[in-house]
């Protein structure tokens, strides 16, 4: 039915309600697209701007008068982790990996050949230096959050004793003894630390299917690494 006959037909109605529906859905889609873009931008800002500043403090407890460790002593490292979050997203600390190496003086001096072979190496302008991994911890951290546009500080303590790991403690004791005898201070050797932190962005639904794309999982996670990882393959 076309033309004047159609226009005069009483069954013919205006399509104005349909237009309103289209405009309504278009506005809804624009709002959703705008919200998605804003959400996405906040993720990008978080991924790009979040930073960490780790600082370590080394302390030897249970020492002799010359500063060397006794068999009942302990090596304690306090890791202060400052997380700066300038983004509008709330972050949650999820994973913390920490390693600390001490320069293996006895191995460098040729006093312990087997350890020199196993040690991690650092090649610099002075040649190859040998480091023993005194601490190597990876822990899942739950519950600690960093609010939007704020900084948060976390403290973690790592202790090495004869009871917790006798082999490592024995080696560290040997190395600190060497530095105490050669440099006059047990902690005079170079200590190198490496920190890897995984922060989860709050409010991100997690894909349940194992076939989900890897980047879908990566989007909600911020990973930061600081320091030198001597255990990393060259």
């Amino acid at each position, binding site marked *: 039915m076309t033309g004047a006959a159609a226009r005069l*037909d009483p069954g013919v109605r205006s399509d104005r309600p*349909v237009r309103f529906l289209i405009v309504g859905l*278009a506005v809804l889609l624009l709002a959703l*697209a705008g919200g998605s873009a804003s959400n996405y931008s906040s993720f990008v800002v978080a991924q790009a701007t979040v930073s960490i500043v780790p600082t370590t403090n080394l302390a030897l407890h249970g020492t002799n008068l010359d500063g060397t460790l006794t068999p009942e002593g302990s090596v304690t490292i306090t890791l202060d982790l400052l997380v700066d979050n300038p983004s509008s997203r709330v972050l949650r600390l999820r994973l913390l990996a920490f390693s600390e190496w001490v320069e293996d003086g006895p191995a460098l001096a040729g006093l312990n050949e087997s350890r020199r072979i196993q040690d991690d190496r650092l090649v610099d302008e002075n040649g190859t230096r040998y480091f023993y991994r005194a601490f190597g911890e990876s822990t899942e951290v739950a519950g600690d959050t960093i609010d939007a546009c704020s900084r948060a500080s976390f403290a973690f303590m790592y202790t090495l004793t004869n009871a917790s790991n006798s082999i490592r403690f024995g080696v560290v004791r040997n190395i600190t003894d060497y530095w105490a005898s050669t440099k006059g201070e047990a902690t005079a050797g170079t200590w190198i630390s490496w920190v890897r932190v995984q922060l989860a962005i709050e409010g991100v639904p997690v*894909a349940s299917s194992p076939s989900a794309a890897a*980047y879908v999982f990566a989007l909600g996670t911020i990973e930061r690494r600081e320091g030198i990882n001597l255990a990393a393959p060259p």
Partner: protein
Amino acid sequence: MQLRLNFGPRFRWMLKGTSLAAFLGLALGYTVFCSIFPNVSVPAEGEASVARILGLLAAAGVLAGLGTDDLPTGVLQGFSIDSVRPRNRVCVGHLAGPQGFLEVRADDIFPFIVRLGLPIYLSALPIYLVTCIVGMVLRERLGLRSASFLGAGSLARRK
């Protein structure tokens, strides 16, 4: 004296067709974004819901069909979405790569590209064509006519 803009019928036809094509393009762009980044979109989901995506495309197609006057316009609208595809790809799909916060490994490139909305781009045109025709059939059944058409009718009646 009242100033009144009086566009020609051809211009109005083009404006209406372009508006509906833009509406379909908006729906397509949003669904592509949802399919690529389901956990970042609003509303956020763990994984993209195929039913939601197809439902949204179909709803947009039916509504566009309800607002379309004739079949050639409907088909033209469906095909004109092609012009927004490259922009969608650049603006949405490839956004994450150059920003450098997503690392795509060599063995991930193919699935990454496939997931960049390609299935939706491929299926959008037939979905839009079919649902647009469904909408136009409904429009005919409900006897819906545009305001300009009815305006012309009342003018004819007055004469």
